[in-house]
């Protein structure tokens, strides 16, 4: 049965006059191929974060501080300066950098295991202290790098390799809503939560990240953007089901929206 669908050529740029509006990777991602799983949401979030740095012309004053998780694979793929920190400690490392380079632009990149498990004390103290840095939390509700174990943001009923029958509050306790917690800190100037499971949310993520950056540029104090990301491997779902799983499992608990603005 021949394929009647007519597919257009997508090997080479169009012959007709056209404007290139998107060129594979943003210029601040130097190494496109990475080893993160098919359908992973983290590269999408990191792309948005790098595009916003480029658009705000911050590339030459930016220092990113990476936590430890799947996204650590990107620490060597970026064309902005990077400090690789220990699991959970990025907000403290970022504090030391910002205090010595007040004109520098400092952004942490962390996962939920990194920030809400290991480094909860670091991020909350940085928020309470009003440290003028931007923390990005890539929240997929599991430890992705080690194969999908429960974290503090895993939602009730969510199955992981350490909550096989679903997270049970009596045994596993309740999820921590990091952005809501951070928003209660007087030192926090901008706190928002978004997701990358559809094009609309990706655009929203880009907007929120840009506003967080602008808050730091204005010296308004601590800013945090929590980005819900897909982890089909760690969720044991097909890549195609990732976006809906996020919508049905994480988003109802970790609500999307701006929680605090300057």
């Amino acid at each position, binding site marked *: 049965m021949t394929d009647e669908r007519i597919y257009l050529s997508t090997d080479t740029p169009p012959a007709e006059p056209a404007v290139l509006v998107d060129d594979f990777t943003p*210029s*601040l991602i*130097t190494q496109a191929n990475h080893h993160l799983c098919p359908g992973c949401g983290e590269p999408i979030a990191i792309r948005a974060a790098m595009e916003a740095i480029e658009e705000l012309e911050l*590339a*030459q*004053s*930016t*220092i990113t*501080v990476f936590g430890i998780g799947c996204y*650590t*694979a990107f*620490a*060597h793929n*970026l*064309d*902005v*300066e*990077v*400090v*690789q*920190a*220990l699991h959970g*400690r990025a*907000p*403290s*490392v*970022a*504090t*030391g*950098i*910002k*205090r*010595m*380079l007040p004109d*520098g*632009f400092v952004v942490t990149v962390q996962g939920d295991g990194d920030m809400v498990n290991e480094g909860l*004390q*670091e991020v909350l*103290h940085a928020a309470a*202290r009003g440290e003028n840095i931007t923390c990005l939390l890539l929240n997929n509700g599991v430890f992705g790098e080690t194969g999908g174990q429960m974290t503090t943001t895993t939602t009730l009923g969510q199955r992981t390799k350490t909550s096989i029958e679903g997270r049970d509050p009596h045994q596993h306790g309740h999820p921590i809503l990091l952005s809501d917690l951070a928003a209660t800190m007087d030192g926090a100037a901008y706190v928002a939560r978004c997701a990358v499971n559809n094009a609309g949310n990706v655009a929203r993520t880009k907007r929120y990240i840009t506003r967080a950056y602008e808050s730091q540029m204005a010296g308004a104090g601590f800013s945090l953007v929590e980005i819900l990301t897909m982890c089909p491997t760690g969720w044991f779902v097909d890549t195609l089901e990732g976006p809906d799983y996020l919508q049905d499992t994480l988003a109802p608990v970790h609500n999307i929206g701006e929680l605090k603005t300057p």
Partner: protein
Amino acid sequence: MSDRVLLEGSEAIARAAVAAGCRFFTGYPMTPFTELLEHMAALLPEVDGVCMNAESELEAVGMAWGAATTGHLAATGSTGQGLSLMQESLSEITNARLPLVVFNMARGQGDYFQATRGGGHGDYRHIVLAPMDVPEAVELTRLAFELASQWRTPVMVLGDYYLAHTYQAVSVPSIEGAAPEVPDWALNGSSGGSGSAKIISPLGGGVEGEEGFDLGAHYAACAAHIQEMSAGVEPLVDIGFCEDAELVVAAYGSVGKFVRYACLRLRDAGHRVGYVRPITLWPFPSEAVHNAVAGSTKVAVYEQNMGQMVDDVRLATMGAVPVEFIGGPSWDHSGFGIGPDINVPDISERILEALK
């Protein structure tokens, strides 16, 4: 008129650190380290430096890590347990090839192994300097910042309650001098967008010619650096009266000063006693110790703990001379490391006992 001033050890060390160019300090209050934090908090703003009262030791060493990546001289510190909380970061800072000075104002001498064996995970060593009193601490603080920058590594100054809280007349360089130039490996964001932005990482790729994420290659390079450092750093040791000594007594730090004085007095009284006081606890002055004890019939090691440096002295003598431990833990009710046995008469008695 001499330029000496009567200063508390903690203040003298703080002034020496700032004079050496330290521009970032952080710590968490803990006796007897607290006063060093207080003096740094008072001094650093005078030179546009930053001192932070961190919310925990974990966060303190993290902040120092960040400050160090900007190429400015950074330091942190604590007491015993506080250092335990910092060990994970100290190990990784070593692999990230960052200069950092760490002050352990210890309680007693029980932290010798933690300091000299690399208290954190993995295969690494730190340079450890052990002053016996305030004037020596001023000099060793200057040296610590110099070695940290030269070798791009953490350097520890191992003090204690006596050092931190003893007032002594000491000459300290002015803190007005400019801080050293920021090295070119340091970060300030400017290499962003250049196609080869800098990265500082304990996982590699932070040093010339090192590609990222070849952990094997990076750890091998770190090991080579440690070996080069252990050969390149001059071991410091204070030796006296060993030429004709029958018994050589080994001790370090403030306790070493008591032991040294006891030996001087016993020498005056005609006893053939010598002393060896390691100042760099790592690299340990093995060769100097070996030569110093070669002519004696016995070595006695005095420490305010259950015996830790005694192992290194045994390794240095390699069985050439018997090595006996004559020290021991000594605590008053405060538990801050003030030892009732740390006095010249009691120490002299133990040395005489060992002479028999």
